């Protein structure tokens, strides 16, 4: 995870561990707090996060990553069932 300034950040999520659907769902959850653009880059999904709200008490980017992980786990489990 890296951030250029307070309003933007770039997150690299490995494609074998984070599904695109999980990332999209997490982005939809946080759409009121930041803007998200997802692209593929080799083995990773690269998520460009911009216009991060400063009015939030908490780390939007890190919470977004937690949501993406939880969604990936849920989607993986439901696809196994």
């Amino acid at each position, binding site marked *: *995870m890296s951030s250029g300034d307070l309003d933007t950040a770039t997150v*690299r*999520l*490995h494609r*074998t*561990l*984070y599904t695109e659907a999980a990332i999209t769902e997490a982005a939809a959850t946080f759409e009121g707090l930041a803007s998200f653009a997802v692209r593929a880059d080799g*083995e990773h999904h690269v998520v460009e996060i911009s216009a991060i709200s400063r009015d939030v008490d908490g*780390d939007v980017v*890190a*919470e977004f*990553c*937690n949501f993406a*992980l*939880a969604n*990936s*786990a849920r989607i*993986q*489990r439901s696809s*196994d069932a």
Partner: protein
Amino acid sequence: MRRVQIETLDATTSTLTLSLDVGLYPRDVLYAAAYVFLDRAYVLLDRQDSRFIVRFRSKRPLETSVFEAMAGEFENELLAQALRHQVFDANQRIIEDVVAVAIGGASAGAEPAAGSAAEPALIPLRGHSELDDTEDGFLTDPAGIARPFEPGKQGSE
């Protein structure tokens, strides 16, 4: 090399990085173990060559000893989830059979079988003998309690 290796631990930035061989645990187990820590830490999974990388950043400042304990706790959680996964796989057929019997038993009582006597309705239909005024005495008022309320006549009798 230990099964789960502490790569970095920095209490000042509240970060802990662990690595483990991808062949040690299935991905489901890694997800389940990481999920347990989501309320306490920001967790980021990654993979480098043949190792999974697990990055934690605590949501609250913690001491180094607590981070070391967290690493051990994560390793314990991996083992617990691996066992849970194994037990589920071993008993999946039994679980499915038990659930199928339970659902089958519940749905069997929902509709009467063809040819069986009709069950009495929970709410009797109007005109049915149970609502017949001559039997329940609602309008005949044998106890004399159905008079309308009239303030001026209270206590006069």
